[in-house]
């Protein structure tokens, strides 16, 4: 790809990967409920979600009603769910487990940073990767160009630039020798696009209704960048508040609403064509203990759920899980859902879809990949 073409009027050469990290250890069991397993109800007499309140997924699993905004996407075959997903980290420590998952094991840099660095179609845009929030997450470490932003205005040159500045800068770059000339033109084009994005009031398409919370506004910024064709290859967002040691429902219901409403608005806003080029991944550092505790909460566990939305990947309408029978199968450690699907194996087909020919052994060193088969 030549320097002058990284931003063009047609479309970005590659799609966009959106990574949502649920920080705090989200309880997959109450998000995607195995209503077909009596063991679930025996382990959670107080906090188990009754079958009649669930949205049916595949006859064995049902979706928590607070995630109902995601249900239409499931029915359309746009949403994939993998249960018993996670990493091999056994510390059950938020910090250690997040660190492990973001680095991709005992490896240098973050998995997303490495992916952006080693993909054959590495980005040339100043907007290749953004983290929505105050700082870069560990998974983006080592990315060739990435910025933590609170709003799109962070990309502009600021409002104190004298009027004469940009025209004169453009004049200097027009005659610049070597690679600097075209690179300057590209950067100026990027600036123009950003300025066009920030000057106009954004109205979401297809009657998408974003809520006012940070997560939804972050997704809205990402949607603007995707539609603005600025060369965005990856975006990360954090959604916290999952550490439900007590009164599970009080803790978890609000972030579940934020998650599902946000993703619903985002996917609706993107529309079918953009959504097909956009892969949204939702992961968490670990799930929670199968049995509820005395405070009607759950403690740190192992396996949880992982959601994949968009990217023309899904379609099976069956939850991927090598499900253990919660009554008779041995649980791991103090009574936790096992990790039957390593998160790297789930990310593998997504990354390959985003960048054909990427060498995944460099993205996930030290892990023998067994990519999960996802319909595509």
């Amino acid at each position, binding site marked *: 790809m030549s320097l002058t073409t990284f931003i063009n009027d047609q479309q970005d050469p590659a799609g966009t990967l959106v990574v949502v990290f649920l920080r705090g250890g989200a309880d997959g069991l109450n998000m995607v409920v195995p209503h077909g397993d009596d063991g679930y109800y025996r382990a959670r007499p107080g906090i188990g979600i009754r079958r009649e309140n669930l949205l049916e997924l595949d006859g064995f699993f049902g979706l928590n009603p607070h995630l109902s905004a995601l249900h239409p996407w499931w029915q359309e075959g746009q949403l994939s769910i993998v249960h018993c997903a996670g990493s091999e980290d056994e510390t059950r420590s938020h910090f250690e487990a997040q660190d492990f998952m973001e680095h991709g094991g005992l490896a240098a*840099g973050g998995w997303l940073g490495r992916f952006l660095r080693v993909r054959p179609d590495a980005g040339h845009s100043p907007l290749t990767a953004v983290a929505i929030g105050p700082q870069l997450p560990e998974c983006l470490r080592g990315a060739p160009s990435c910025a933590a932003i609170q709003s799109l205005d962070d990309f502009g040159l600021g409002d104190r630039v004298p009027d004469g500045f940009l025209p004169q800068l453009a004049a200097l770059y027009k005659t610049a020798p070597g690679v*600097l000339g075209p690179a300057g033109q590209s950067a100026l084009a990027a600036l123009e696009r950003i300025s066009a994005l920030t000057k106009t009031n954004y109205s979401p398409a297809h009657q998408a209704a974003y809520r006012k919370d940070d997560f939804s506004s972050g997704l809205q910024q990402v949607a603007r960048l995707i539609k603005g064709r600025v060369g965005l290859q990856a975006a990360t967002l954090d959604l916290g508040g999952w550490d439900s040691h007590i009164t599970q429902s009080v803790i978890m219901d609000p972030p579940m609403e934020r998650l599902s409403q946000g993703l619903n608005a985002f996917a609706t806003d993107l529309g079918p064509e953009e959504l097909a080029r956009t892969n949204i991944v939702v992961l968490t550092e670990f799930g929670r203990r199968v049995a509820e505790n005395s405070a009607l909460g759950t403690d740190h566990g192992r396996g949880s759920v992982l959601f994949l939305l968009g990217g023309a990947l899904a379609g099976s309408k069956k939850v991927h899980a090598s499900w253990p029978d919660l009554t008779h199968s041995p649980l791991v450690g103090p009574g936790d859902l096992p990790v039957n699907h390593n998160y790297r194996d789930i990310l593998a087909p997504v990354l390959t879809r985003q960048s054909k020919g990427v060498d995944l052994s460099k993205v996930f060193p030290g892990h023998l990949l067994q990519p999960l088969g996802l319909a595509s």
Partner: protein
Amino acid sequence: MSTTRRRFLKAATAGGAVAGVAGFSALSHVLAPILSGPGDGLTAFSPPQADEIDETTHILNRLTFGPRPGDHAGMLKLGRKAWLDRQLDPESIDDGWAEARTRHFEALNVWPLGELLEYNARELLDQMTRAKILRAVHSRRQLQEVMVDFWTDHFNIDPSKGDSKWLKPADDKTVIRAHAFGKFRDLVKASALSPSMLWYLDGRVNRRATEKEKPNENYARELLELHTLGVDGGYTQQDVMEVARCLTGWTVRARENTRFAVGKVSFRADLHDDGPKTLLGVTIPAGLGEGDLDQVLDIVCQHPATAQYLAGKLCRRFIADTPPASAVTNVAQAFTDSSGDIRHTLRTLFDSPEFLTARGGKVKRPFHFVISTLRATAARTDAGPALQDYLLRMGHAPFQYPTPDGYPEDAQPWMATLLWRWKFALEFADHSLKGTQFDPQRLQQSAGGETGLAAHLLGRSPAAAETTALAASGQPVALLLASPAFQSF
């Protein structure tokens, strides 16, 4: 001890009125940062006057992180040869100022290594990063800083892996800095046994306790591919495996297993494959034990491919992204003739006509761009979050490159960073970059006016079109720093 010093510094800064003790030598290093006024060394100086980059500017551009006010006149006065002699012998240059600016990063000097475990990993990375920035800005041993940067990429370690986060400061000090101008073989050996490297490239788990156990080839491969022979150096997969066998048994005490002597490197004969090996056609007899390492180093460091590969890398850094073959050949010859003496090899390179004539054709990497801005403007910086954030955005934060090949040297991969460079230039010139200040009035005055300042920043007299653009820009300093000429060196 260090706590006391920190407290004292704080008190001294708060007190302010400490000028009276300036001559008190025991304190002068500590007080230097406080006593010097803003913009150190900012007195009247004569900027370059030629229409094209002259030899003096060229040498300053390539062998330093960019000229400070007065550097051009200073080299003219000293003479190119004497200047180069001093830079190649950094101990001969008094560097008290840079020492004083970095001394309070006490984590970088902690010994034994295990003590470093008390530090938060982010804090350590921050201290390493600040020290690197401040040395690049303030050290008068500029060629040393440039070569440290070069070797840091050549023997790249991303310390975010395992115990590396606590061990990299020692690598920086006892491997990279200690051998930057020494014998290449000593540098490679120090790196091979560096606890941080043993973590980063898995040397610590390269073992053969049983017949069935396969050695870990990670370090062996990079030693050949990146550190010595180069990817086209003519080695085979078999050679990689033989190197891995030779290095089985070297390990480092890990934090997860012990609180005692963490980071200590040792050779475990019981985990070593002591059979005979053949590397690049040379036989290494059985039974040498830890002596295998020296055999490997002799073979790979004396190999002609290593001279060629290193000469190519040095020429790409100092001459051009695509250097003339003649230069590479001559530099390789100097490397071979001197048995891998880095100082001698560099001198040959810097004396070559190919080097002296290749002016202005390289593009600064983001770190170089930021540091050269601070140097040219005699800025003061805390090297803190605001500055580091720009390096992160441009994908060039020190010690954060994940793969062992180090940050790329050629211009192409950095072309997406222009927007951030412009934003940095504007924010800096506008005095809105937190933690970094400069005095534009005094700078312009010292340079003898607007044209003088432009010549100082461009390294030559401004062209007519540039003068017009500067006048019309409304923010000439930012435009100079954002200009294509300032991105080049």
